[in-house]
Structure formats: structure tokens, C-alpha cells
């Protein structure tokens, strides 16, 4: 038991060291992640009400269309969004409800 | 054959949309799951990928299943892939059945029809799979010897490669000399090596190689046997005593390297045969090779050439409705690949050595695709060759010129000059005649080799098996397959050689065991099967001593059996059947297809 604890301690210290070494990278990744989380949440919140096209979503949540599409492709890949009917030259997207687990992702 | 219910695993492939765009794969899976005997039914984006194969292996290992059906593309593509996977799971590879739901379903049907047909095909495959039994491949001894048919550059190179691997080689050439088309060439595009030097280097090697036997001036009379044990009867031309020598060659593998010939324009094509000033590229290369010109202009038949016109794509890239087919109806729709570089190469030689000879090249597309070839085109421009471009439906016209200086006038609607009609006075017109395969239809039918619509020999698949025929043990290399330049033909030769070497290196070959098998108890020795057999030597009646009595019984030579089933069809006792394709299996398959349950 004691050795396990000792290993755990050693690992903890090592992780701390590693975090120190990669401080800048971690900070950058964290802020990227936070923005992504917020952006994707905005898309998903909007889609709770209705299915919509990329330009519609973009206009509503004030995000460039290319960025919206990038998120949409990603959310779709990980099974959180599904593609619906086409409206004009654009496809409508809606939430995958009930949100299936990611096992389905990218079959 | 045991009738006990087997546990079949069915694996259905999306083929990345190739199948799933038209077949509702998940619906098929739901239906399959309910079929009798099916233990598991699974789907995967690419069943042939590693995760797909792993799925099958796991199910086999865990004992969930003992028969496998994969529903995907044509079995010609991936049957071996899945058999190998089953082998890796420690099972017998012949407990496997394939349902083709791509070529036979998704590529030709849409919507519900497609989903229904896929279900039916899988039901039928499952019915068959239940009756599959483990089989052992047929092992035949293979003669460590290869026969190359054709002594051009591809044939010589194949022979050398195989011989240098320690396998004996016989090279057969119908003409009196080796070298094929290389004998007709001079400086080779794009780097300018002399064809004769290349040939000499190859000949030096091949003539000194102890493992290579060469027969020139001979004809192939017959080809028999099967992979590892082919037999070729050849006859040499009459010798001084007017005697034809007959030779039989026993060989393990055969490489077709029968090469190509130059297209001969029909009478009047671009004035060919009507005006002596119209010649072919082959003629021009011959003139350059002889090099009888002195001074600053190219001389042809003692005449100084001032303006020569070179016309590309003669006998190549022909279009139905625009070009005239040959007498046999053949239209060469393919690109001959080598002529652009060869023309530019000749132009550069002429412009460099004979600056007084002006050159006009009339082309459709300049196809200098290969390494060093675009530079050849660039160089031709630097050498002041004038290029003019015509459309396929507005070919240049050759007419008589009005001056004695220029006996011909070539008219062209030149798309580079804004589609204006242009006239070029010429005292020589050179036609870039393309490549046609040498006619080997007799050999091909003797050996049952496929020929494509372009009349070239046809490989199994350009990427999966580019140098192989469907007949195991027969390969192809060089321009009998498609137009190629010397380097490409040598690469093809290497590729064919590596396949032949791998095949023969073990000394034996394993063949699929889908051959006729006789039930000795049932066989009454009628001999109907022997009569029906399509492959001479595959079936015979032998006398068997059973408990002191001599009985006639049919015997199968497995290595020769085609597995065609002609014998099974005629046996009154149903004493002969095909392994893996038994009559009962057919019956069950038909039952599965006609039963209503499996389609929606």
C-alpha cells in the first residue's frame, strides 16, 4: 500500500514539473479550449430552438460563416449534430436529440 | 456433409458510402440478424480495413461463429483479404463466403430495391456458408523455370531479372533477332541515349547468362498445363536441311512480353501513300539514324528539306464518328503515350543539326508527362519549332502546293492563332504514328488470356494486380499491355519478374481447393463425367481394387480441375461434386433467394 502511495506521489510531482515546463502551451490550449467551448455552446443553444443553416446560425450568433461551418463539421463528426434537409443551397442542421454517446461518432 | 446448423457471422460493409449511399446497411443488418443460422451480424465503414478484419477475428476466436459471410465489393478484390484474416484467427480460410453487394447491388440499384437485393444476396450467401466445410489448399510442385514470350526490351529485361534470381528462363522470340521495337529507334527521348547502346547492354547480359535459353525465329504451337507445370510446344523455322525443329518446354510460369507494332496509316490518311513526301515518324527516325544528310539542312532522298510539318496523334486518340475505323472496325481511342516526346526529340535533333530545316508541329495536346520530357518541349520551342494546335474534328489537310519548292501545302485551323485558317508550305510531312499491340489473338485464345477493347492484353486490375492475368502463373509485361516507353517497359518487366520469382521461389504452389471430388462409394464408373470434362487430363477412369474386385472409378487430378462443375451435372449417381460449390449449396441458395422473408 505504501509503495503505491509513494508512486502516486512521485507521479504527482513529475506531473507538476511537466506542467511547469509546458506552462505556455497549456495556457494557450486552455484559452483555445474555453473559446471553443463557448462557441460550440452558442451554436448548440441556438439549435435547441430550431434547425438552421450555416448562414442563419452565423448571423444570429455573430460568428463568421467559415468558423461556424468548421464547428458544425466537428460537432457532426462527434455525433452531437445531425444534418437535415436542404434549404436552397444550404443544409439545415439540428441537435442530435437525445444526444447519443460518442460511440456512434464517425462510424 | 453435415447438416448441422452452423453459427454464421455476417459482416456488412458500408464501403465508405459506395454501398451505404444506396443500400440501407443498418436495415440490412437488422434483417440479416433474424436469418436462421446467423449468430452475429455487424457493419463497418470499411470491412477490409484493420478494424473490420479484427472484428471478424475476435468473433471467430471467441467461438461465437464458425462460418463467415462478408457482404461487400466483388470477391475478386477482397476474397483473399478475408480468407487471410480468418487464417489469422486460427480458422480454416475456406469457411468463408462472399456476397457482392457493391458491383451487383449499390452500383446498379437504388433505394429499397437495393436494400432488398442486398438482403437476398446475403441470405443466399448465408445459406451456402452453412454448408461450407474446411478445406485444404491443393499443393502442386512448381518447376523452377519461367518462359518469356517475346524478345523485345520487356522480354529481355524480365528474363534477366528472373534468371538473376536463380530461376531458369527460356526466352522465345518469333523473329530472327532480339530487341523488338528497340531496333527501330535511334536516340531515345528525353535524355538521348542511343537505342543500340541500350540494346547492346541488355544483349551482352542475356547472351552471357547461363540460366537463359533463347529460341528465336520460332512459333508457339501449343500451351498446356497449369501453374507450376506448363508445357509449351514450339517449332523453329525450317533450317538449312528444311527441317522444323520441335521443342517442348516445361515451365512453371509464363510471361507475355509480346510487344507492339507501329500504326500504319491507311491509304490517303494525311496523304500517306499518295504523296511521297508524307512519311511516318518511324521512317523519320530511320532517316535520322542513317544520317545521310550533310550540311545545314536535313536531306531526304537527296533533297534538302526546308519546311517540315509534323502531325501528332495519327492513329491514336481516335474518336468514333470523327475518325475512320480500320478495315477490321478497330478505332484506336487510346493515347499512344510515347509519340509526343519522340516527335519533340526528333525535332530537337533536326533543329540542332540542321538549322535550315524549319519545323511545324501540329498537335492536339502536347503530352510530355514524364521526367525530362517537359524540358524537351521547352527545348523545341527554344529551337524555334513552331507549334500549331488543331481540334480532333478539324484535322489538318494535306493538299498539293503551288510551287515546286514546296510540293505540299498543309492547311490547319489553328486554335493558337485564334482559330484562323493557316497554310504551311511543306516539303516533308511526318505523321506521328502511334502504337498498336502486336496481334497475339491466337496465343491469347490458346491460353485463354483476356484482351481489352483497345486490343491490348488485359491485366486483372491496374492497381491490385497490374502484371497478372486471371490465369494463375501467367504474367504480362511491356507494350503488349499498353503503350510504354523503354523505361516504363523495363519497370513493368521488373514487376512481372518479381511476381514470377515470388511464385516459384518456394518450389510449390498452393491452389484453391474448389475442385471436383468423387464419392467413391457412390461412383459406378459410368464415365459420363470424363466425357463432360472440359479440361483434358483433369478427370479419368481408373481401375480400383476393392476387396479383390476391380472397379472402375473416376479420379480427379486436382491441380488441373477447373472446378467448372460439368461433371457434377452429368453424374447419374450424384457421385461427383465440387468442393465449396456443392449442389446442395446451390439448392439452399436458390431456396433462400426465392423465399419471401428476406426482402422487406
Amino acid at each position, binding site marked *: 500500500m505504501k509503495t503505491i502511495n509513494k508512486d502516486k506521489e512521485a507521479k504527482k510531482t*513529475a506531473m507538476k514539473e*511537466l506542467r511547469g515546463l*509546458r506552462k505556455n*502551451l*497549456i495556457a494557450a*490550449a*486552455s484559452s483555445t*479550449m474555453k473559446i471553443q467551448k463557448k462557441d460550440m455552446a452558442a451554436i448548440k443553444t441556438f439549435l435547441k430552438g430550431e434547425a438552421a443553416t*450555416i448562414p442563419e446560425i452565423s448571423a444570429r450568433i455573430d460568428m463568421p460563416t*467559415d468558423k*461556424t*461551418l*468548421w*464547428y*458544425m*463539421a*466537428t460537432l*457532426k463528426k*462527434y455525433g452531437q449534430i445531425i444534418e437535415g434537409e436542404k434549404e436552397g*443551397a*444550404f443544409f439545415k442542421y439540428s441537435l442530435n436529440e437525445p444526444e447519443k454517446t*460518442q460511440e456512434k461518432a464517425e462510424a | 456433409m453435415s447438416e448441422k446448423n452452423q453459427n454464421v457471422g455476417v459482416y456488412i460493409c458500408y464501403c465508405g*458510402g459506395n454501398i451505404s449511399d444506396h443500400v440501407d446497411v443498418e436495415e440490412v443488418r437488422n434483417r440479416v440478424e433474424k436469418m436462421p443460422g446467423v449468430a452475429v451480424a455487424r457493419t463497418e*465503414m*470499411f470491412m477490409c*480495413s*484493420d478494424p473490420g*478484419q479484427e472484428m471478424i477475428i475476435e468473433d471467430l476466436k471467441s467461438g461465437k461463429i464458425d462460418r463467415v459471410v462478408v457482404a461487400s465489393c466483388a470477391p475478386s*478484390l*477482397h476474397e483473399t*483479404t478475408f480468407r487471410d484474416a480468418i487464417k489469422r484467427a486460427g480458422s480454416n480460410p475456406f469457411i468463408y463466403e462472399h456476397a457482392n453487394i457493391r458491383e451487383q447491388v449499390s452500383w446498379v440499384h437504388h433505394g429499397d430495391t437495393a436494400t432488398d437485393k442486398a438482403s437476398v444476396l446475403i441470405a443466399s450467401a448465408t445459406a451456402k456458408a452453412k454448408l461450407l466445410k474446411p478445406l485444404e489448399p491443393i499443393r502442386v510442385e512448381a518447376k523452377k523455370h519461367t518462359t518469356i514470350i517475346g524478345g523485345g526490351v520487356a522480354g529481355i529485361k524480365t528474363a534477366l531479372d528472373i534468371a*538473376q*534470381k*536463380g530461376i531458369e528462363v527460356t526466352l522465345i522470340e518469333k523473329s530472327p533477332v532480339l530487341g523488338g521495337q528497340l531496333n527501330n529507334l535511334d536516340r531515345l527521348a528525353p535524355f538521348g*541515349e542511343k537505342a543500340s547502346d*541500350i540494346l547492346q547492354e541488355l544483349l551482352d547480359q542475356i547472351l552471357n547468362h547461363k540460366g537463359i535459353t533463347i529460341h528465336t525465329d520460332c512459333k508457339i504451337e501449343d500451351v498446356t498445363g497449369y501453374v507450376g507445370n506448363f508445357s509449351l510446344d514450339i517449332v523453329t523455322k525450317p533450317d538449312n536441311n528444311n527441317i522444323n525443329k520441335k521443342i517442348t518446354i516445361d515451365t512453371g510460369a509464363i510471361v507475355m512480353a509480346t510487344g507492339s507494332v507501329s500504326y500504319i496509316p491507311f491509304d490517303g490518311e494525311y496523304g500517306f501513300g499518295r504523296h511521297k513526301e508524307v512519311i511516318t515518324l518511324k521512317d523519320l527516325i530511320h532517316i535520322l539514324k542513317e544520317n545521310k544528310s550533310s550540311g545545314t539542312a536535313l536531306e531526304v532522298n537527296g533533297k534538302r528539306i526546308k519546311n517540315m510539318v509534323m502531325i501528332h496523334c495519327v492513329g491514336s486518340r481516335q474518336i468514333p464518328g470523327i475518325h475512320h475505323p480500320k478495315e477490321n472496325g478497330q478505332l484506336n*481511342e487510346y*493515347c499512344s503515350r510515347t509519340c509526343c516526346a519522340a516527335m519533340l526529340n526528333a525535332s530537337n535533333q533536326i533543329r540542332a543539326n540542321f538549322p535550315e530545316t524549319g519545323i511545324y508541329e501540329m498537335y492536339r495536346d502536347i*503530352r510530355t*508527362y514524364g*521526367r525530362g*520530357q517537359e524540358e524537351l518541349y521547352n527545348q523545341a520551342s527554344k529551337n524555334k519549332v513552331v507549334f500549331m494546335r488543331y481540334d480532333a474534328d478539324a484535322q489538318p489537310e494535306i493538299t498539293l502546293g503551288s510551287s515546286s519548292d514546296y510540293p505540299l501545302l498543309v492547311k490547319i485551323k489553328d486554335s493558337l492563332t*485564334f482559330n484562323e485558317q493557316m497554310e504551311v508550305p511543306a516539303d516533308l510531312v511526318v505523321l506521328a504514328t502511334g502504337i498498336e499491340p502486336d496481334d497475339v489473338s491466337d496465343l491469347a485464345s490458346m491460353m485463354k488470356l483476356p484482351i481489352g477493347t*483497345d486490343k491490348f492484353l488485359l491485366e486483372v486490375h*491496374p492497381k491490385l494486380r*497490374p*502484371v497478372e492475368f486471371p490465369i494463375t502463373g501467367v504474367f504480362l509485361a511491356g507494350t503488349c*499491355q*499498353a503503350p510504354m516507353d523503354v*523505361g*516504363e517497359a*523495363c*519497370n*513493368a518487366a*521488373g*514487376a*512481372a*519478374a*518479381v511476381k514470377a*520469382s515470388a511464385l516459384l521461389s518456394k518450389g510449390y504452389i498452393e491452389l484453391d481447393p474448389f475442385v471436383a471430388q468423387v464419392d467413391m462409394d457412390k461412383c459406378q464408373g459410368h464415365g459420363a463425367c470424363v466425357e463432360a470434362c472440359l479440361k483434358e487430363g483433369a478427370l479419368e477412369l481408373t481401375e480400383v481394387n476393392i476387396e479383390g474386385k476391380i472397379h472402375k472409378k473416376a479420379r480427379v487430378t486436382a491441380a488441373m480441375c477447373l472446378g467448372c462443375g460439368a461433371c457434377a451435372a452429368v453424374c447419374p449417381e450424384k457421385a461427383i461434386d465440387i468442393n465449396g460449390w456443392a449442389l446442395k449449396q446451390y439448392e439452399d441458395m436458390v431456396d433462400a433467394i426465392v423465399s419471401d422473408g428476406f426482402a422487406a
Partner: protein
Amino acid sequence: MVSTHIKNFDTLVVGGGIAGLQTALDLGDQGYRVAVVEKDASIGGKMIRLSKVFPTLDCASCITTPKMSAVAHHENITLFTYCELNSLDHDGSGESQGIKALITQNPRYVDPVKCIGCRQCEYVCPVHIPDMEQGGLSATKAISIPFSNAIPQLPIMDIENCMLCGQCEKACPTNAIDYFQKPEEFTITAKTAVITTGFDLLAVKDNVQYGNGRIPNVIDSLQMERLLAPHGPYNRVLRPSDGMEPDSIAYVQCAGSRDKSMGVSYCSRVCCMYAIKQAMLLSGSLPLADIIIYYMDIRAFGKGYEQFYQNAKAMGIEFVKAKVARIDKGENGSAQVRYELQDGSGIATTDHDLVVLSMGMVPGWNPEPICPVSKDSDQFITSIKPKISPVLTNMDGLFVAGAAAGPKDIVDTITESGSAAMEAAKFMSKSLMEN
């Protein structure tokens, strides 16, 4: 870190694309022991990233995955993926003129033995990064398996974008995550080596005339392959700026080929055919779209290629003989191509929803200063006998195949790989006889 770890083989194949796989198979089938060293995390090279391939329109995966799988399971072949080749030269030590290569195994931060490829780490990872396997058009995670049919099925952790949050470690059912993994060096010795390092495309961002990659909806041909591929970023063809289904798609040929001012002076050999192929696939998935190919010469020279080209014309794909001089940003996300009307009627500017640049091919690997093998002025590896054996290099026992020796299509690459395997085998049986 110097390692004395030495692995011995008959042949070292550098590059695990289609050329390397075919070479390895052709050698392995003859009983030679082969090592395949690949810089990427998966074997399969460019081909596994393609949609369908000309002229048969087989899906690229259908041809590549079985070869990948065959290599991975071959008893005579060993794979080393995600590896850096540090040096490759004759082995000076001893009598033999064998090959010696120093290699670094890059850390995946995942234990390859423990990992079962379940992708739980990828699902829980909170950081999204542009998925370069998808031309950057969609995202993957900071730890992920490169693509669905990758071999091996091992994830890679991108430490540049990792927050060290520990979620993947928690999710991993087999304790395979190892944040402390270090690069490992090892040595491979072999009798022969085959260079099959393939090609790269010139970068759109370096092309001023076509907008330095800053004009929306101007993409390169490999990105279009992804849009058309079954696992593509959108699972259909949409234009990247706003997800519109394009109505008008243009191909710009010789974008950086046959043009020293823009890239390279040679012909990249495959662009005509893949543009025609993509155009055909597009007209299948977008039957109403206008598809135009701007070209200088159509180079459909291979077996069945010319017929393929004529079929495309018959299908209504438009071929315009012109070299696009420049591309500008048009209205509403369109890209505007400018070219000369060669019939003499002036200059045209045409708007397209999506423009695909058939970028030129350049070598995927520079031997300098890793290996003393020569390159030509075109920067591809020199073939010393382009007629009798195009796979021979100026280094004894070292051969080359595929696009490493100049742009080449898959058919020609596979044939050449067989030829390289043959030369390597001959070289080994020769030295066997001499010894």
C-alpha cells in the same frame, strides 16, 4: 540519447505509402525480411487520403486498406510508424557495404502495447484542433487516432495543444496514456534500402497569383479529395466559407507546374487525370453543378486514360484551354478566375463557387543531409539508368520507387515498386553468390 538498439533486416523501405507498401509486399513475398519506416502516424501515404482513383474509379480505400493490412500482418514485414529518419548511409563498419539507418521513434504519449484503439481518449479530450487529415476543414482532438482506417490504430497526443488536464488518462481503460514518453533512437541495418518517400503538393499559401490561400473557397486538390471522400469533413461537397453546396466548380490546372515563375518547370503528371476524375465524381454528387477544367494540355496518356477523358467530355464537363492568370475574391463568397479566351475574343473573368487548384508536385523528402544519394535539378532522386532500370540510384544497394523519383500516378508507382523490389532482390542474391 544514444541507443545501441540495433534491428537487422534484409531491406529497409523508407516511406509507407503505396510505393513502400507494394515494395515491402513484393520483397516479403519472396521471403526477405523488410522494415518499413514511415514518418506519419499511419501507413497508407497520400493514397489512403484519396477518394476514388482513376481510371477505374475504385475507392482508394478499397485498394489501399487491404495492402496496408497485408503489410501489417505479413510475417516478413515490420512496421515502424511515426519515425524520423536521421541518417541513411552505407554501413562503414565491417566488410559489407550494407545500409545503416539511424531512426528516432517519436513519442505518441501512448503505450503501443497497452492501447487497444478504443478511442475513449479522443472522445473525452476537450481541445479541438484543425484536422490536417481533412485539409484542416474540420477538427479533431488533441489526442486522436489519425483517421478511421489508420494502421496502426494508435492515437497521437499533440502536446503543443494539450492542456495536461488528465481526462484521457482517466478515460483510458488500459492505462496506456504516458505523458512522459520520450523519443527513442534505434538503428536499422539492412542489405538494401528502397526510397519511397513520395511527394507533397506545393502550398497554396506560397502562390501569389492564386491569392496566397487567402481567397475563400480556393482549395487544393487534396482538400477536394477529402470533400469527396467517404470520411470527409462534411460528408458531402460544401464550400468551406459558408457550407453552401457549390453550383459552379472550377479546376485550375498547372497551378505551379510547367511554370518556373510559379513553382516548378516540369509536368506534375497526375493533375489532368485527377481533375477529370474529381470532376466526374462531382457531377455524380452534384448533377446540376457546372464543372469547368481550365487546362493547357490534357495529358491523359495512360491505359484507359484518354477514354476516361472523352467520357468526361461526354458527361458535360467543360474543358477550357487557358491558363488561369490570377484569381480574385468575387462577390458572395465566389472566387473569380481570370484567363484569356483563346479564340481571340479577349479576357474573361468568371465567378465560381469553388475553385480547386491542381497544385504541382514536389518531392516529399530531401535526402540532404540525411543520405548521400543524388538528386536531379528537379529535386527528385536521380535515376542513373532511366531506361534499363529507372529504380537504380547512384548509391549501391539503394533503390527508389514511386513519386520519390518524379511525379507518378498510382498505376505507374505500383509497377515501379515491383521493379524496385526486383532490383533489391537481385542485389541481395548477387551479394549472396559473391559471398
